[in-house]
Protein backbone atom coordinates (compact mmCIF):
# COMPACT_ATOMS: atom_id res chain seq x y z
CA UNK A 1 0.00 0.00 0.00
CA UNK A 2 1.62 3.24 -1.12
CA UNK A 3 0.29 6.67 -1.84
CA UNK A 4 0.91 7.45 -5.54
CA UNK A 5 2.44 10.82 -4.68
CA UNK A 6 4.81 9.18 -2.19
CA UNK A 7 5.81 6.61 -4.79
CA UNK A 8 6.52 9.41 -7.23
CA UNK A 9 8.62 11.24 -4.63
CA UNK A 10 10.56 8.06 -3.85
CA UNK A 11 11.19 7.47 -7.55
CA UNK A 12 12.52 11.02 -7.90
CA UNK A 13 14.66 10.93 -4.75
CA UNK A 14 12.54 13.54 -2.95
CA UNK A 15 11.89 11.00 -0.20
CA UNK A 16 14.48 8.47 0.87
CA UNK A 17 13.90 5.05 2.40
CA UNK A 18 14.84 4.65 6.05
CA UNK A 19 17.20 1.80 5.16
CA UNK A 20 18.32 0.41 1.79
CA UNK A 21 16.32 -2.57 0.47
CA UNK A 22 14.01 -2.79 3.50
CA UNK A 23 11.01 -2.90 1.16
CA UNK A 24 10.31 -3.45 -2.55
CA UNK A 25 7.35 -3.08 -4.87
CA UNK A 26 6.24 -6.31 -6.53
CA UNK A 27 5.03 -6.57 -10.12
CA UNK A 28 1.55 -5.49 -8.99
CA UNK A 29 2.95 -2.38 -7.32
CA UNK A 30 2.27 -3.81 -3.85
CA UNK A 31 4.67 -2.93 -1.03
CA UNK A 32 6.47 -6.02 0.26
CA UNK A 33 8.93 -6.02 3.18
CA UNK A 34 12.23 -7.74 2.41
CA UNK A 35 13.26 -10.60 4.68
CA UNK A 36 15.28 -13.81 4.57
CA UNK A 37 14.26 -17.34 3.66
CA UNK A 38 16.32 -20.40 4.50
CA UNK A 39 17.48 -22.38 1.48
CA UNK A 40 16.97 -25.63 3.44
CA UNK A 41 14.09 -25.39 5.94
CA UNK A 42 12.35 -22.33 4.41
CA UNK A 43 12.16 -20.52 7.76
CA UNK A 44 11.66 -16.81 7.20
CA UNK A 45 12.90 -13.84 9.21
CA UNK A 46 12.57 -10.07 9.20
CA UNK A 47 14.71 -8.02 8.95
CA UNK A 48 17.22 -10.01 6.91
CA UNK A 49 19.62 -12.31 8.77
CA UNK A 50 23.06 -13.65 7.82
CA UNK A 51 22.04 -17.31 8.02
CA UNK A 52 19.01 -19.32 9.10
CA UNK A 53 18.18 -18.77 12.75
CA UNK A 54 16.66 -22.26 12.97
CA UNK A 55 19.09 -24.52 11.07
CA UNK A 56 22.08 -22.26 10.29
CA UNK A 57 21.82 -22.86 6.52
CA UNK A 58 22.37 -20.11 3.93
CA UNK A 59 19.49 -17.74 3.27
CA UNK A 60 18.16 -15.78 0.32
CA UNK A 61 16.43 -12.43 0.50
CA UNK A 62 12.74 -12.64 -0.36
CA UNK A 63 9.70 -10.43 -0.53
CA UNK A 64 7.48 -11.36 2.42
CA UNK A 65 3.71 -11.74 2.45
CA UNK A 66 2.03 -8.35 2.22
CA UNK A 67 -0.80 -9.12 4.66
CA UNK A 68 -1.08 -10.49 8.18
CA UNK A 69 -2.75 -10.16 11.55
CA UNK A 70 -1.81 -8.11 14.60
CA UNK A 71 -0.55 -10.28 17.46
CA UNK A 72 -0.17 -7.42 19.95
CA UNK A 73 0.42 -3.69 20.12
CA UNK A 74 1.46 -0.72 22.23
CA UNK A 75 1.47 3.05 21.91
CA UNK A 76 4.87 4.59 22.61
CA UNK A 77 4.52 7.88 24.49
CA UNK A 78 8.23 8.34 25.24
CA UNK A 79 10.54 7.19 22.47
CA UNK A 80 14.24 6.34 22.60
CA UNK A 81 16.69 9.17 22.09
CA UNK A 82 17.71 7.84 18.67
CA UNK A 83 14.12 8.03 17.37
CA UNK A 84 13.90 11.07 15.08
CA UNK A 85 10.13 11.09 14.69
CA UNK A 86 7.40 12.32 16.99
CA UNK A 87 5.38 10.62 19.70
CA UNK A 88 3.01 8.98 20.21
CA UNK A 89 3.38 6.19 17.68
CA UNK A 90 1.69 2.82 17.60
CA UNK A 91 3.78 -0.34 17.38
CA UNK A 92 2.32 -3.67 16.35
CA UNK A 93 3.73 -7.16 16.25
CA UNK A 94 2.28 -8.76 13.14
CA UNK A 95 2.29 -12.39 12.07
CA UNK A 96 2.34 -12.22 8.28
CA UNK A 97 0.40 -14.75 6.24
CA UNK A 98 3.70 -16.55 5.54
CA UNK A 99 4.26 -16.86 9.37
CA UNK A 100 7.03 -14.24 9.49
CA UNK A 101 6.90 -12.08 12.62
CA UNK A 102 7.39 -8.36 12.01
CA UNK A 103 7.34 -5.51 14.53
CA UNK A 104 6.49 -2.21 12.92
CA UNK A 105 4.47 0.97 13.06
CA UNK A 106 0.70 0.96 12.59
CA UNK A 107 -0.72 3.91 10.65
CA UNK A 108 -4.37 4.92 10.43
CA UNK A 109 -5.02 2.80 13.51
CA UNK A 110 -8.60 2.03 14.52
CA UNK A 111 -10.03 4.13 17.34
CA UNK A 112 -10.26 1.42 20.00
CA UNK A 113 -6.87 -0.24 20.13
CA UNK A 114 -8.15 -2.88 22.59
CA UNK A 115 -9.61 -4.54 19.50
CA UNK A 116 -6.26 -4.38 17.74
CA UNK A 117 -5.13 -8.01 18.39
CA UNK A 118 -6.37 -10.06 15.44
CA UNK A 119 -6.75 -7.01 13.20
CA UNK A 120 -6.00 -7.74 9.53
CA UNK A 121 -3.26 -5.45 8.22
CA UNK A 122 -1.53 -4.68 4.95
CA UNK A 123 2.13 -3.74 4.52
CA UNK A 124 2.83 -0.27 3.21
CA UNK A 125 5.14 2.72 3.21
CA UNK A 126 4.73 6.05 4.97
CA UNK A 127 6.82 9.10 5.75
CA UNK A 128 8.08 8.70 9.32
CA UNK A 129 10.06 11.90 9.88
CA UNK A 130 12.27 14.53 8.29
CA UNK A 131 16.04 14.48 8.56
CA UNK A 132 18.43 17.05 7.13
CA UNK A 133 15.50 18.62 5.29
CA UNK A 134 14.53 15.39 3.57
CA UNK A 135 11.51 13.22 4.24
CA UNK A 136 12.31 9.66 5.33
CA UNK A 137 9.90 6.82 4.55
CA UNK A 138 9.75 3.45 6.22
CA UNK A 139 7.74 0.25 6.25
CA UNK A 140 4.45 0.44 8.15
CA UNK A 141 1.19 -1.45 8.41
CA UNK A 142 -2.28 -0.19 7.55
CA UNK A 143 -5.57 -1.77 8.64
CA UNK A 144 -7.15 -3.68 5.74
Amino acid at each position, binding site marked *: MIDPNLRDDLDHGLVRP*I*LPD*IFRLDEMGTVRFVGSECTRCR*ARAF*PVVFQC*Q*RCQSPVNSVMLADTGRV*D*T*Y*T*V*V*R*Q*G*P*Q*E*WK*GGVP*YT*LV*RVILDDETMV*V*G*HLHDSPGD*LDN*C*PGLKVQSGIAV*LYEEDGQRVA*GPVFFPR
Partner: protein
Amino acid sequence: MQVRIVGVGMHRCGRFPDVSYRQLAFTAAKKAVDDGQVAWDQIDVLFASHTLQGISAGAQVARDLGLAGIPVVNVENACASGTTAIHEAAAWILAGRADLALVVGFEKMGRGVISGIGEPETYEAKMGLNVMPSLYGMMANKHRARYGTTLKQMALVSVKNHHNGALNPIAHFRKEVTVDEVLSSRMVADPLTLLQCCPTSDGAAAVLLCSDRKARDLVAGPSISLAGSAIGTMAYGDDESMVSRRTALRAYEAAGVGPEDVSLAECHDAFTIGEIMHYEELGFCREGEGGLFVEQGHSWLTGDLPVNPSGGLESRGHPLGMTGVAQVCEVVWQLRQQAGPRQVAGRPRVAVTHTQGYAGVAAVTVITR
Protein backbone atom coordinates in the same frame (compact mmCIF):
# COMPACT_ATOMS: atom_id res chain seq x y z
CA MET B 1 30.96 -29.97 45.30
CA GLN B 2 28.84 -26.93 46.00
CA VAL B 3 29.49 -23.23 45.73
CA ARG B 4 28.98 -21.30 48.96
CA ILE B 5 27.99 -17.68 49.32
CA VAL B 6 30.04 -16.33 52.20
CA GLY B 7 29.67 -12.57 51.90
CA VAL B 8 27.26 -9.99 50.47
CA GLY B 9 27.19 -6.20 50.42
CA MET B 10 25.56 -3.28 48.65
CA HIS B 11 25.77 0.42 48.05
CA ARG B 12 22.23 1.77 48.24
CA CYS B 13 20.42 2.63 45.01
CA GLY B 14 19.51 6.16 43.98
CA ARG B 15 20.79 9.13 42.01
CA PHE B 16 24.39 9.94 42.89
CA PRO B 17 25.70 12.45 40.36
CA ASP B 18 28.82 13.13 42.41
CA VAL B 19 29.72 9.51 43.07
CA SER B 20 31.67 7.52 40.46
CA TYR B 21 30.91 3.92 39.53
CA ARG B 22 34.25 3.05 41.08
CA GLN B 23 33.20 4.48 44.43
CA LEU B 24 29.88 2.62 44.25
CA ALA B 25 31.64 -0.65 43.42
CA PHE B 26 34.27 -0.12 46.11
CA THR B 27 31.63 0.37 48.80
CA ALA B 28 29.69 -2.75 47.83
CA ALA B 29 32.81 -4.91 47.50
CA LYS B 30 34.22 -3.81 50.85
CA LYS B 31 30.93 -4.60 52.57
CA ALA B 32 30.85 -8.09 51.02
CA VAL B 33 34.44 -8.82 52.00
CA ASP B 34 33.84 -7.51 55.52
CA ASP B 35 30.66 -9.60 55.71
CA GLY B 36 32.59 -12.72 54.70
CA GLN B 37 35.45 -11.88 57.05
CA VAL B 38 38.00 -12.90 54.45
CA ALA B 39 41.40 -11.40 53.75
CA TRP B 40 41.66 -9.48 50.48
CA ASP B 41 44.68 -11.51 49.40
CA GLN B 42 42.62 -14.70 49.43
CA ILE B 43 40.46 -13.54 46.52
CA ASP B 44 41.44 -15.45 43.36
CA VAL B 45 39.35 -13.72 40.71
CA LEU B 46 37.09 -10.68 40.24
CA PHE B 47 33.99 -10.78 38.05
CA ALA B 48 32.72 -7.28 37.18
CA SER B 49 29.19 -6.89 35.84
CA HIS B 50 28.34 -3.66 34.04
CA THR B 51 26.79 -2.59 30.74
CA LEU B 52 27.32 1.14 30.29
CA GLN B 53 30.59 1.94 32.07
CA GLY B 54 33.01 1.47 29.18
CA ILE B 55 36.03 -0.67 28.50
CA SER B 56 37.58 -2.69 31.34
CA ALA B 57 35.70 -0.99 34.13
CA GLY B 58 36.32 -4.14 36.16
CA ALA B 59 40.08 -3.60 36.00
CA GLN B 60 39.60 -0.09 37.40
CA VAL B 61 37.56 -1.52 40.26
CA ALA B 62 40.18 -4.21 40.87
CA ARG B 63 42.87 -1.54 41.14
CA ASP B 64 40.76 0.48 43.59
CA LEU B 65 40.33 -2.64 45.72
CA GLY B 66 44.04 -3.43 45.69
CA LEU B 67 43.34 -6.57 43.67
CA ALA B 68 45.43 -5.64 40.65
CA GLY B 69 47.28 -8.74 39.49
CA ILE B 70 44.45 -11.27 39.80
CA PRO B 71 42.30 -12.26 36.80
CA VAL B 72 39.46 -9.82 36.12
CA VAL B 73 36.50 -10.85 33.97
CA ASN B 74 34.13 -8.14 32.70
CA VAL B 75 30.61 -9.46 32.08
CA GLU B 76 27.92 -7.82 29.93
CA ASN B 77 24.64 -9.62 29.31
CA ALA B 78 22.08 -6.79 29.33
CA CYS B 79 19.80 -6.80 32.37
CA ALA B 80 20.95 -10.35 33.16
CA SER B 81 24.60 -9.29 33.48
CA GLY B 82 24.84 -9.65 37.27
CA THR B 83 23.24 -13.08 37.39
CA THR B 84 25.43 -14.16 34.49
CA ALA B 85 28.55 -12.99 36.32
CA ILE B 86 27.57 -15.08 39.35
CA HIS B 87 26.85 -18.08 37.12
CA GLU B 88 30.26 -17.74 35.48
CA ALA B 89 32.12 -17.17 38.75
CA ALA B 90 30.53 -20.36 40.11
CA ALA B 91 31.74 -22.20 37.02
CA TRP B 92 35.30 -21.11 37.80
CA ILE B 93 34.97 -22.51 41.32
CA LEU B 94 33.35 -25.76 40.20
CA ALA B 95 36.12 -26.21 37.63
CA GLY B 96 38.76 -25.79 40.34
CA ARG B 97 40.14 -22.60 38.78
CA ALA B 98 39.39 -20.51 41.89
CA ASP B 99 38.45 -21.01 45.54
CA LEU B 100 37.24 -17.50 46.26
CA ALA B 101 35.58 -15.29 43.65
CA LEU B 102 34.38 -11.74 44.17
CA VAL B 103 31.47 -10.66 41.95
CA VAL B 104 30.76 -6.94 41.80
CA GLY B 105 27.84 -5.52 39.81
CA PHE B 106 27.66 -1.76 39.36
CA GLU B 107 26.07 0.85 37.14
CA LYS B 108 25.40 4.53 36.75
CA MET B 109 22.37 5.11 34.56
CA GLY B 110 21.28 8.03 32.39
CA ARG B 111 17.89 9.63 32.69
CA GLY B 112 14.81 8.75 30.63
CA VAL B 113 14.00 5.51 28.90
CA ILE B 114 17.02 3.36 28.22
CA SER B 115 18.19 4.25 24.71
CA GLY B 116 21.01 3.42 22.38
CA ILE B 117 20.67 -0.31 22.91
CA GLY B 118 21.36 -2.55 19.97
CA GLU B 119 23.38 -1.61 16.94
CA PRO B 120 22.72 1.81 15.35
CA GLU B 121 21.65 1.95 11.69
CA THR B 122 19.53 -1.17 12.10
CA TYR B 123 15.81 -1.51 11.40
CA GLU B 124 15.05 -1.62 15.13
CA ALA B 125 17.08 1.49 15.93
CA LYS B 126 15.89 3.53 12.96
CA MET B 127 12.21 2.67 13.55
CA GLY B 128 12.21 3.52 17.29
CA LEU B 129 11.64 -0.09 18.34
CA ASN B 130 14.50 -0.32 20.85
CA VAL B 131 12.59 1.09 23.77
CA MET B 132 12.11 -1.37 26.61
CA PRO B 133 8.69 -0.16 27.85
CA SER B 134 7.26 -0.76 24.38
CA LEU B 135 8.42 -4.38 24.33
CA TYR B 136 6.76 -4.97 27.69
CA GLY B 137 3.72 -2.94 26.66
CA MET B 138 3.21 -5.37 23.80
CA MET B 139 3.64 -8.32 26.18
CA ALA B 140 1.08 -6.78 28.52
CA ASN B 141 -1.54 -6.31 25.82
CA LYS B 142 -1.01 -9.87 24.62
CA HIS B 143 -1.37 -11.23 28.16
CA ARG B 144 -4.50 -9.15 28.67
CA ALA B 145 -6.04 -10.36 25.42
CA ARG B 146 -5.09 -14.00 25.90
CA TYR B 147 -5.71 -14.49 29.63
CA GLY B 148 -7.84 -11.58 30.75
CA THR B 149 -5.13 -10.13 32.98
CA THR B 150 -6.41 -6.82 34.33
CA LEU B 151 -4.84 -3.38 34.70
CA LYS B 152 -5.54 -3.59 38.42
CA GLN B 153 -3.60 -6.84 38.72
CA MET B 154 -0.66 -5.20 36.98
CA ALA B 155 -0.90 -2.18 39.26
CA LEU B 156 -0.90 -4.45 42.31
CA VAL B 157 2.60 -5.61 41.40
CA SER B 158 3.77 -2.01 41.68
CA VAL B 159 1.84 -1.47 44.92
CA LYS B 160 3.35 -4.62 46.45
CA ASN B 161 6.91 -3.86 45.40
CA HIS B 162 6.77 -0.25 46.52
CA HIS B 163 5.42 -1.47 49.88
CA ASN B 164 8.42 -3.80 50.21
CA GLY B 165 10.84 -1.12 49.05
CA ALA B 166 9.54 1.27 51.68
CA LEU B 167 10.91 -1.23 54.22
CA ASN B 168 14.31 -1.50 52.54
CA PRO B 169 16.95 1.09 53.51
CA ILE B 170 18.93 0.55 50.30
CA ALA B 171 15.94 1.05 47.97
CA HIS B 172 15.86 4.01 45.56
CA PHE B 173 12.17 4.74 46.17
CA ARG B 174 10.87 4.20 49.68
CA LYS B 175 7.33 5.47 49.22
CA GLU B 176 4.16 3.41 49.17
CA VAL B 177 1.79 3.87 46.23
CA THR B 178 -1.87 3.01 45.68
CA VAL B 179 -3.56 1.29 42.75
CA ASP B 180 -5.15 4.60 41.76
CA GLU B 181 -1.80 6.39 41.84
CA VAL B 182 -0.21 3.68 39.70
CA LEU B 183 -2.96 3.69 37.10
CA SER B 184 -3.25 7.48 36.92
CA SER B 185 0.47 8.12 36.56
CA ARG B 186 1.76 9.21 33.15
CA MET B 187 1.36 6.69 30.33
CA VAL B 188 4.74 5.53 28.97
CA ALA B 189 3.83 2.67 26.60
CA ASP B 190 0.23 1.51 26.74
CA PRO B 191 -0.88 0.02 29.05
CA LEU B 192 2.23 0.66 31.19
CA THR B 193 2.16 3.83 33.25
CA LEU B 194 5.21 5.43 34.82
CA LEU B 195 4.70 3.72 38.20
CA GLN B 196 4.70 0.37 36.42
CA CYS B 197 8.21 0.99 35.08
CA CYS B 198 11.47 0.66 37.00
CA PRO B 199 13.44 3.86 37.55
CA THR B 200 16.92 4.42 36.17
CA SER B 201 19.14 4.27 39.23
CA ASP B 202 22.80 4.16 40.24
CA GLY B 203 24.00 1.43 42.56
CA ALA B 204 26.33 -1.48 43.24
CA ALA B 205 26.23 -4.90 44.87
CA ALA B 206 28.83 -7.57 45.61
CA VAL B 207 28.84 -11.26 46.42
CA LEU B 208 31.67 -13.52 47.57
CA LEU B 209 31.50 -17.05 46.20
CA CYS B 210 33.61 -19.76 47.77
CA SER B 211 34.47 -23.41 47.22
CA ASP B 212 33.40 -25.98 49.84
CA ARG B 213 37.01 -26.63 50.70
CA LYS B 214 37.79 -22.98 51.30
CA ALA B 215 34.55 -22.35 53.18
CA ARG B 216 35.65 -24.76 55.89
CA ASP B 217 38.54 -22.40 56.71
CA LEU B 218 36.33 -19.34 57.03
CA VAL B 219 34.39 -17.98 59.97
CA ALA B 220 31.33 -20.16 60.56
CA GLY B 221 27.99 -18.63 59.68
CA PRO B 222 24.76 -19.85 58.14
CA SER B 223 25.71 -22.10 55.23
CA ILE B 224 24.24 -20.57 52.11
CA SER B 225 24.78 -22.40 48.83
CA LEU B 226 24.44 -21.45 45.19
CA ALA B 227 22.73 -24.75 44.49
CA GLY B 228 22.18 -24.23 40.77
CA SER B 229 22.15 -21.63 38.05
CA ALA B 230 21.57 -21.32 34.33
CA ILE B 231 21.66 -18.76 31.55
CA GLY B 232 19.83 -18.86 28.23
CA THR B 233 18.71 -17.04 25.11
CA MET B 234 15.55 -17.04 22.99
CA ALA B 235 15.49 -19.67 20.27
CA TYR B 236 13.96 -19.21 16.82
CA GLY B 237 10.19 -19.26 17.12
CA ASP B 238 10.14 -18.77 20.91
CA ASP B 239 7.67 -16.36 22.40
CA GLU B 240 9.00 -14.08 25.11
CA SER B 241 8.08 -16.49 27.92
CA MET B 242 10.04 -19.46 26.67
CA VAL B 243 13.55 -18.28 27.49
CA SER B 244 12.85 -17.73 31.18
CA ARG B 245 10.78 -20.90 31.44
CA ARG B 246 13.52 -23.03 29.88
CA THR B 247 16.32 -21.36 31.86
CA ALA B 248 14.45 -21.81 35.14
CA LEU B 249 13.94 -25.52 34.47
CA ARG B 250 17.68 -25.95 33.93
CA ALA B 251 18.49 -24.08 37.14
CA TYR B 252 15.97 -26.15 39.12
CA GLU B 253 17.42 -29.32 37.65
CA ALA B 254 20.96 -28.27 38.55
CA ALA B 255 19.84 -27.53 42.11
CA GLY B 256 17.75 -30.68 42.49
CA VAL B 257 14.66 -28.73 43.52
CA GLY B 258 11.38 -27.72 41.91
CA PRO B 259 9.22 -24.61 42.07
CA GLU B 260 7.14 -26.27 44.81
CA ASP B 261 10.21 -26.05 47.08
CA VAL B 262 10.74 -22.30 46.66
CA SER B 263 10.27 -20.11 49.75
CA LEU B 264 10.83 -16.70 48.11
CA ALA B 265 12.04 -15.14 44.87
CA GLU B 266 13.56 -12.01 43.44
CA CYS B 267 12.49 -11.68 39.81
CA HIS B 268 12.80 -9.24 36.94
CA ASP B 269 9.98 -6.74 37.54
CA ALA B 270 11.42 -4.03 35.27
CA PHE B 271 7.77 -3.62 34.22
CA THR B 272 4.77 -4.92 36.14
CA ILE B 273 3.63 -7.35 33.44
CA GLY B 274 7.08 -8.92 33.58
CA GLU B 275 6.62 -10.04 37.17
CA ILE B 276 3.18 -11.51 36.37
CA MET B 277 4.65 -13.48 33.47
CA HIS B 278 7.63 -14.60 35.55
CA TYR B 279 5.35 -16.16 38.20
CA GLU B 280 4.19 -18.45 35.41
CA GLU B 281 7.61 -19.01 33.82
CA LEU B 282 9.26 -19.84 37.17
CA GLY B 283 6.49 -22.36 37.88
CA PHE B 284 4.86 -20.55 40.80
CA CYS B 285 1.41 -20.72 39.15
CA ARG B 286 -0.17 -22.05 35.98
CA GLU B 287 0.15 -20.25 32.65
CA GLY B 288 -2.22 -17.33 32.44
CA GLU B 289 -2.80 -17.14 36.21
CA GLY B 290 -0.02 -14.68 37.08
CA GLY B 291 -2.49 -11.84 37.55
CA LEU B 292 -4.53 -13.88 39.99
CA PHE B 293 -1.35 -14.92 41.82
CA VAL B 294 -0.61 -11.35 42.88
CA GLU B 295 -4.29 -10.42 43.36
CA GLN B 296 -4.82 -13.35 45.73
CA GLY B 297 -1.82 -12.26 47.81
CA HIS B 298 0.51 -15.20 47.21
CA SER B 299 3.50 -13.02 46.23
CA TRP B 300 3.10 -10.38 48.95
CA LEU B 301 5.46 -10.23 51.89
CA THR B 302 2.87 -12.05 54.01
CA GLY B 303 1.98 -14.53 51.26
CA ASP B 304 3.05 -18.12 50.84
CA LEU B 305 5.67 -17.26 48.19
CA PRO B 306 6.90 -13.68 48.61
CA VAL B 307 8.35 -12.21 45.41
CA ASN B 308 10.67 -9.21 45.37
CA PRO B 309 10.80 -8.58 49.13
CA SER B 310 13.60 -6.08 48.37
CA GLY B 311 11.16 -3.88 46.46
CA GLY B 312 12.38 -5.30 43.18
CA LEU B 313 13.58 -3.33 40.23
CA GLU B 314 10.59 -1.00 40.52
CA SER B 315 11.34 0.26 44.01
CA ARG B 316 14.87 -0.81 44.97
CA GLY B 317 16.04 0.21 41.49
CA HIS B 318 17.58 -1.30 38.37
CA PRO B 319 21.18 -0.25 37.78
CA LEU B 320 21.61 -2.77 34.97
CA GLY B 321 24.91 -4.39 35.91
CA MET B 322 24.00 -4.43 39.59
CA THR B 323 20.57 -6.01 39.55
CA GLY B 324 21.33 -9.73 39.42
CA VAL B 325 23.97 -9.38 42.13
CA ALA B 326 21.64 -7.30 44.33
CA GLN B 327 18.96 -9.98 44.02
CA VAL B 328 21.40 -12.55 45.42
CA CYS B 329 22.32 -10.18 48.27
CA GLU B 330 18.63 -9.88 49.15
CA VAL B 331 17.89 -13.60 49.16
CA VAL B 332 21.02 -14.29 51.22
CA TRP B 333 19.84 -11.76 53.82
CA GLN B 334 16.41 -13.42 53.74
CA LEU B 335 17.82 -16.95 54.11
CA ARG B 336 20.02 -15.76 56.99
CA GLN B 337 16.93 -14.05 58.47
CA GLN B 338 18.71 -10.71 58.49
CA ALA B 339 16.21 -8.75 56.37
CA GLY B 340 14.72 -6.69 59.17
CA PRO B 341 11.15 -5.43 58.71
CA ARG B 342 10.89 -7.00 55.25
CA GLN B 343 11.93 -10.45 56.49
CA VAL B 344 9.68 -13.14 55.06
CA ALA B 345 7.96 -15.35 57.61
CA GLY B 346 9.05 -18.81 58.65
CA ARG B 347 12.50 -20.19 58.00
CA PRO B 348 13.01 -19.82 54.24
CA ARG B 349 15.28 -22.49 52.82
CA VAL B 350 15.10 -22.16 49.01
CA ALA B 351 15.21 -18.90 47.06
CA VAL B 352 15.22 -18.14 43.35
CA THR B 353 16.62 -15.10 41.55
CA HIS B 354 15.78 -14.29 37.94
CA THR B 355 16.77 -11.62 35.43
CA GLN B 356 16.06 -11.22 31.74
CA GLY B 357 16.96 -8.61 29.22
CA TYR B 358 17.37 -7.11 25.80
CA ALA B 359 17.74 -9.51 22.87
CA GLY B 360 16.05 -12.33 24.77
CA VAL B 361 18.54 -13.29 27.47
CA ALA B 362 17.63 -14.81 30.84
CA ALA B 363 19.49 -16.02 33.92
CA VAL B 364 18.28 -17.87 37.01
CA THR B 365 19.90 -18.93 40.27
CA VAL B 366 18.66 -21.24 43.01
CA ILE B 367 20.08 -20.46 46.43
CA THR B 368 19.56 -22.68 49.46
CA ARG B 369 20.24 -22.67 53.17
